[in-house]
């Protein structure tokens, strides 16, 4: 199954301490959209799984989030890329929901809705919570140094065996070269 799961903030776009709360505040990281476009054109299905606690905190609502994602998809289409689905958790940590990463609820929902198995599927994120959620469903976590990633590397907290790349572009390069090596 050629599927890749991406975190959003700090992986595709610049993260913000005070949440990305409007279309204007959504800014792609350099090279990220091009990387997703290449991944898609190489035959991968791409799904985004993202924590959006800003909704629980009243910083934005589901309609603004939809507008932000519309902008992301529109910009991505300029690079020939398509994101098949965007799963988000609207809760705050204190809500103790099942979907907020590191809980695997959103990944399970994705697996059910798209009728795909997640075993071995690359999950690219910039936080430990991304890695933990991926491990909980038997997927293959990948850390990028963008967003919070560098801080995790600096603190020596990267779990054993989790590959680390400079950014989404480098992570995608690795996935594509492994994919072509495997098919040889």
């Amino acid at each position: 199954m050629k599927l890749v799961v991406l975190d959003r903030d700090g992986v595709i776009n610049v993260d913000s301490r005070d949440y990305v709360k409007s279309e204007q505040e959504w800014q792609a990281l350099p090279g990220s959209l091009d990387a997703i476009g290449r991944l898609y054109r190489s035959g991968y299905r791409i799904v985004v799984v993202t924590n959006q606690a800003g909704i629980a905190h009243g910083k934005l609502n589901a309609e603004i989030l939809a507008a932000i994602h519309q902008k992301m998809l529109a910009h991505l289409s300029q690079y020939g890329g398509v994101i098949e689905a965007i799963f988000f958790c609207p809760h705050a940590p204190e809500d103790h929901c099942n979907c907020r990463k590191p809980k695997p609820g959103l990944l399970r929902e994705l697996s059910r809705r798209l009728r795909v198995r997640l075993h071995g599927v690359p999950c690219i994120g910039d936080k430990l919570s991304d890695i933990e959620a991926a491990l909980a469903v038997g997927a293959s976590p990948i850390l990028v140094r963008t967003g919070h990633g560098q801080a995790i590397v600096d603190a020596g907290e990267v779990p054993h065996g989790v590959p680390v790349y400079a950014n989404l572009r480098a992570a995608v390069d690795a996935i594509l070269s492994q994919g072509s090596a495997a098919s040889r």
Partner: protein
Amino acid sequence: MVLLRSLVFYLGLATATLVFVPLGLLLLPLPFATRFRVMSRWSAFNLWSLKAICGLDYQVTGIENIPRQAGIILCKHQSAWETLALQLVFPAQVWVLKRELLWIPIYGWGLASMAPIAIDRAAGMRALRQIVAGGKERLARGIWVVIFPEGTRVAPGKRGRYQPGGGMLAAETGCPVVPVAHNSGYFWPRNSLRKRPGRITMAIGPVIDSRGRSAEEITRLAEEWIESTVAQLPAPAPPA
């Protein structure tokens, strides 16, 4: 070659119809959801053979936007393709359609067995009341309602006038509205047998919450999302 493949596809479609229509009538005593699961295999077969014979595939984005509660699908209408694909993407559903379709021999009988909301398009206000009354009843039973707000198929790049029936049903029931855009018309053109090889994209939009909104506003929000999304979908140049 394209024409020949398309004819073979239609031969398969006709054969499947001859199998499924008697089946639909036979299954009538069963619950709707069960019958839908069986009868939508007709669509599954046709979309499979479309890919196998004509090389026409599809992809769906935004499937996470489909709520658990039954809602109203407001869908762009460019070809018969979307009437098939919606059956595989969304749960058990009925269609708002012009009653003349039920008069087609055999095929119409199959359609009629699936509890469609058949309206008399010439009836104006009465047709709108038929949509609201019929839709309300289906939604209360947990069945989705499919409406093509433009009323009829529209060529790619064109926009029909969005009719008020879907928005009225939504405002009346408070059920979620799910807008759907796609580019099927480029591959499955109206008034032509030819199916172009390629890949249709269907995009499912974020739910429009109809509670506390007027019918006009719901229709306008759906139209805005559908038309702006359709404009972004791939528009392959016509074959040479």
